[in-house]
């Protein structure tokens, strides 16, 4: 794998510690979800983000609360990194009334308008043009916000991703296309889907500049995302980031080494050696940081307990909200 040299800006210790907290929160939350899947408590399809935490953390740390992110089926990490409330995510996964989507969406449909998450959906690349539309809104209103589309490597094989990149470039929209290349689209390795390993060039034909980033290095992701967001805010148009990474669990569900019945080719062990959290911890410890996970574990327990205690939606109400009563988020 070739990578462009990371544009390292030395980040202060406090920043590194915040990223560590974000990434560990995501991992522990995902491990909790995995346990819920294994116990049968969580029944909706759960696509875990373990192994990819540096991308959500690095990109979202380059954003403001008012910027929007647009995700897909594997978006627990995006939601948490952008500030979505943890208990509401657990409750949503358990189908509870207090869930971030009122128990209507489950794991694949997360929402936190106040944190700039206007909806994640599992149709492959379904939100990519929506991110472009949000960026169009910002441009038309003269606002300096950015929209970030998070999507997997499989999405680049969808035609409307290319339509979207062209529109974003043509209208010089403040959008960042973040392709999380975890090498697999569901169960299929990239080599079974493409002849060449050059996703970072996907935007070239559409005049969207692209860059390959080590997606397991939170500082490298942050540096690339910051540059892309600055371009967006300055009215210079969209950027495309290919963040190389690996998901540790299967496409869906909790299992580590089986993916829809396909045994992966020994890559997992290799990638676990590149664990983005362990890498960050080496840096932090070298700086003399003291890392204490206890507050995170307590938060997990409390949020999980609150979600478990929350009621299921009342009977007979599932027909509500087919239509919105008002356009604005509450």
């Amino acid at each position, binding site marked *: 794998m070739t990578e462009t040299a990371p544009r390292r800006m030395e980040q202060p210790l406090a920043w590194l510690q915040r990223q560590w907290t974000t990434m560990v929160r995501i991992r522990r939350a995902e491990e909790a979800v995995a346990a819920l899947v294994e116990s049968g408590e969580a029944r909706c399809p759960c696509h875990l983000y373990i192994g990819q935490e540096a991308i959500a953390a690095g990109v979202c740390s380059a954003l403001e609360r008012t910027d929007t992110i647009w995700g897909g089926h594997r978006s627990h990490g995006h939601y948490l990194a952008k500030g979505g409330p943890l208990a509401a995510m657990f409750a949503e996964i358990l189908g509870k009334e207090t869930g971030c989507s*009122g128990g209507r969406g489950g794991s694949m449909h997360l929402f936190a308008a106040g944190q700039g998450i206007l909806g994640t959906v599992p149709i492959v690349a379904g939100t990519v043009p929506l991110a472009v539309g949000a960026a169009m809104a910002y441009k038309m209103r003269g606002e300096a916000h950015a929209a970030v589309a998070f999507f997997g490597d499989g999405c680049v094989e969808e035609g409307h991703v290319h339509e979207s990149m062209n529109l974003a470039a043509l209208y010089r929209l403040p959008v960042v296309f973040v392709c999380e290349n975890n090498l697999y689209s569901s169960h299929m390795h990239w080599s079974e889907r493409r002849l060449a390993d050059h996703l970072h060039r996907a935007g070239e034909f559409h005049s969207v500049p692209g860059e390959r980033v080590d997606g397991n290095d939170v500082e490298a992701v942050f540096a690339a995302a910051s540059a892309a967001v600055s371009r967006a805010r300055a009215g210079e148009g969209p950027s495309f980031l290919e963040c190389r990474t690996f998901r540790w669990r299967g496409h869906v569900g909790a299992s580590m080494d089986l993916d829809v019945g396909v045994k992966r080719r020994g890559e997992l062990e290799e990638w676990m050696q590149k664990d983005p959290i362990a890498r960050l911890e080496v840096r932090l410890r070298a700086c003399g940081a003291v890392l204490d996970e206890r507050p995170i574990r307590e938060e997990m327990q409390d949020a999980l307990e609150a979600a478990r205690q929350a009621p299921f939606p009342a009977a007979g109400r599932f027909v509500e*909200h087919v239509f919105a009563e008002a*356009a604005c988020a509450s």
Partner: protein
Amino acid sequence: MRVLTYAAAIREAHAQILAADPRAFVIGQGLWSPWYAGASLEDLDREFSRERIIDSPVSENATTGLAVGAALAGMRPIVFHPRLDFMLLAADPIVNQAANWAYLFGGRIGVPLVIRGVINRGGEQGAQHSQALHAMFMHVPGLKVVMPAAAYDAKGLLMAAMDDPNPVLYIDDRCLYETTGAVPEAMFRVPIGKAALRRSGRDVTLIGISSMAAQCNRAAETLSVEGIDAEVIDLRSLKPWDRDRVIESVRKTGRAVVADPGWRTAGASAEIAATISAEAFHDLKEPVERVTLPDCPAPTSRLEEGRYYAGAKEICESARRVLGRGSAQGAAA
């Protein structure tokens, strides 16, 4: 009252919306050309700038998805598809995204989006430039579907669609663009879900959709010469549709003909006929008749096209059938 063409009424609605609401913009294919939208969008780009009237690359999916995202981010877009046939390339943002969004997130957000699609009935347009696909979209929860047949409704329904916090599919038909009707100059709304009573009658209810509502008006005139007093309802909205108005009428007349510009199988007419049959069963004197397109794509050759498209003649034949008047009698009339 002032008289406008159907196309001019659509254009006036756009102009008034764009002037009144800085959040409104139009995006889609062919907006800067008379080729695609006829007079219905003529020179809007000059009046409101090309930043707000955006003639886009031919990217139906992404432009529609863009409109969904812009709506979620607080804008009021109209996304334009010059043919419903082309709009199928945008099925994902319409059906999966816009229609589901409010529900998926527990009603916390709506998608205030107007999706405008055009039917082009006749004119040798053929199977991929003429399809009336409203029934496919009427099927989907979370989408509203309106189909004006009169110039007045062409304006008033577009205004109502823009006010709605939900995605509204607004379907107009090129074959109606030159038809004229009284249209108020001021902004006004035609409520979504309310039918219009075009003619009161005692003998049979003719329920028309879009261009077939116009054909129902013509059929009623022919029938009146024969002594048949037809009531005509222009449905105007397909989702939700005005069940109360239709059922009330059929309870009175005991006979119903549903005239739909779409195909027969699982069409809009099937839904309406089934509802009438269930809810007005004891008032019906004859089974509900349906006038539709045959289950066949549109042929192009003009003679074949004439055979393909049903109109006032077929509506009259159906009305005579439910009244027990023979076809020979009809032919003589």
